């Protein structure tokens, strides 16, 4: 077990394309670190560099305090789970799982024992003598995990290990992966494009975009204190609502409401804030049906026409339109790379309401929002406006 450190690591291909740009990341011993980002953000390349399957162009890759830039994958003592599992089709499950140990010239008796233990953990005992071709998707995924855990390596590297499973199995396996990791306490780097997976699994999550590391933090930090528009828009489902807004004195003018600035935002903006244009962000959960809220608790209510209601049973999603300056928002979104993720109409807002709400489609309803949750972003560059302390 050991820590993995990426020290200003860059991957540049022969044609000059930089897949990973000056990435520095410290993964602590035993930590479950998630690399997340849209496709093409460099997360898989970063993982392959940790594995040694891709060379590091610049910077140092350290595993357990040792620079491994020039160490072959086989000597790094790491196990990897591939997106497509990469099971050896000509070997039985038993041979697949024991292959690494056999190469390491471990005693056959010990191999058998380790493989059987792993198989027991993963509920694969009765499939040990079958070939991968005869297994279901979930079973293959477990064999891939088994192949990793029998080795008791310094670190697990997982490259979208759940993306080939169907939705239900994915959630179930996600829990299993999480339990297994916390029980084994092995340093794990997990790559995914699915922010839900990232948020539910990781001790810490590293958000990447276009080869650059955007933010590293616990899921809660990323959710509550995103550093920029990209992270704010990427983390959370449904995504955060963005709207053009103007600062005016002690309040922010949103297209649908004037919201008083929280103390924190006042501090962040400084006393000399003037009439500044900003991008305001509000998560769907920061809204509520005003009729279900005791208004004496504060907050801001506003009337809006509801375009669409989606009922999830436990909650409702209400869609309404913000009559704002689309160009500003869309430009800021494009600058920060968000447009690839969201697309569609930037004036469409989503509010998550309690299931008890009786609002229906086409109503002009009174919605409530929590001003303390409002986050503001600089339209130039998309950085979040936050107090630096």
């Amino acid at each position, binding site marked *: 077990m050991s820590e993995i450190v990426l020290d200003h690591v860059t991957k540049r291909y022969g044609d000059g394309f930089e897949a990973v740009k000056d990435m520095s990341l410290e993964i602590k011993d035993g930590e479950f670190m998630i690399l997340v980002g849209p496709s093409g953000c460099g997360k898989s390349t970063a993982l392959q560099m940790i594995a040694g399957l891709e060379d590091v162009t610049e910077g140092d890759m350290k595993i357990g305090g040792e620079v491994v830039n020039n160490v072959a994958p086989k000597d790094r003592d790491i196990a990897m789970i*591939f997106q497509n599992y990469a099971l050896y089709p000509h070997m039985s499950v038993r041979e697949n799982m024991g292959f690494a140990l056999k190469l390491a010239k471990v005693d056959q008796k010990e191999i058998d024992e380790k493989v059987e233990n792993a198989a027991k953990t993963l509920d694969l005992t009765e499939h040990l003598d079958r070939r991968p071709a005869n297994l279901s998707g979930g079973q293959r995924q477990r064999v891939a995990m088994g192949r990793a855990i029998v080795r008791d390596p310094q670190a697990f590297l997982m490259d979208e290990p759940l993306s080939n499973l169907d939705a239900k199995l994915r959630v179930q396996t996600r829990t299993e992966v999480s339990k297994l990791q916390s029980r084994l306490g092995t340093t794990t780097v997990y790559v995914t494009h699915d922010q839900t997976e990232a948020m539910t699994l990781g001790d810490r999550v590293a958000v990447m975009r276009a080869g650059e590391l955007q933010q590293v933090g616990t899921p809660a930090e990323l959710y509550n204190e995103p550093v920029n528009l990209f992270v704010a828009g990427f983390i959370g489902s449904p995504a955060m609502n963005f709207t053009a807004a103007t600062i005016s004195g002690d309040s922010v003018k949103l297209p649908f409401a004037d919201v008083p600035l929280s103390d924190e935002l006042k501090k962040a903006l400084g006393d000399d804030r003037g009439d500044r244009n900003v991008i305001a962000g509000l998560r769907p959960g920061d809204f509520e049906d005003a009729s279900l809220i005791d208004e004496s608790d504060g907050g801001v209510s506003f009337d809006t026409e509801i375009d669409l209601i989606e009922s999830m049973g436990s909650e409702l999603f209400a869609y309404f339109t913000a009559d704002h300056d689309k160009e500003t928002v869309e430009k800021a979104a494009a600058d920060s790379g968000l447009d690839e993720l969201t697309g569609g109409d930037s004036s469409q807002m989503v509010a998550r309401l309690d299931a008890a709400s009786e609002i229906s489609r086409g109503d002009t309803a009174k919605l409530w929002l929590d001003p303390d949750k409002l986050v503001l972003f600089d339209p130039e560059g998309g950085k979040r406006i936050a107090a630096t302390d």
Partner: protein
Amino acid sequence: MAHSGREKTLWSIAILIVLLFSMIPVLWIISISLKTPATVTDQSFLPTEFSLENYKSLFTGGISESPFIKPLINSILIASITTFISIVLASFAAYAIARLEFTGRRLILAGALAIAMFPPISTVGPLFDMWRALGLYDTYPGLIIPYLTFSLPLAIYTLVAFFREIPWELEQAAQIDGATPFQAFRKVIVPLAAPGMFTAAILVFIFAWNDFLFAISLTSSDASRTVPAALAFFTGDSQFTQPTGSIAAAAVVVTVPIIIFVLLFQRRIVAGLTAGAVKG
């Protein structure tokens, strides 16, 4: 896709015609080989008098006397050695071409193709002179080397296609599991490419087995003369009889190893061996 009855009938007729077209000469050779010398020229499709005399004559006299046994051994050895060397070299080359990024990769492939396209007849003359100067004339290597130059491109091409089919992740998985590049190649890639290797092996073996041009030009004695060339030197019982019957018998005998070879390796060409490696 369901075929209509009409379609099926038409297909059956077409297949039958092709089968007849390709099988009749073979059957005719078998028929001739079974005829007695007196009835060889009777032009009947089925032999009127059966005799195994032609086959017996091929093998009488042992290695020293028989015009057939030594060439048969030569053929088997030369074709087998060629196949073995060709497959080993081609699998290394094809693996590099399929997997590694290096400059000149296309050039190698194009060069291999160009060599395969080269008409053998144009190289036979120079080879004859060179081999005599080098002492390779009428030796096993003297035939194996030219066979390799023509069969390697073929084998490389076949194998590149097969190697490209194998998911790269398998090899990466092997490397992560602690395999050296050679171990990954030997324990993961080769078993998976086995169908391709056997396909290539069959093609190379048949090429070497069937060759007449090099065999007749680069040999002068039973030391290394292969069967196709030896057949040309068959003589009749007397100077007035044609060796038709024994040539036919020899032709039948040399076909047998090819059939065995194909049947043997065909069982190994199991489709879908790679199924289940990745999601499916």
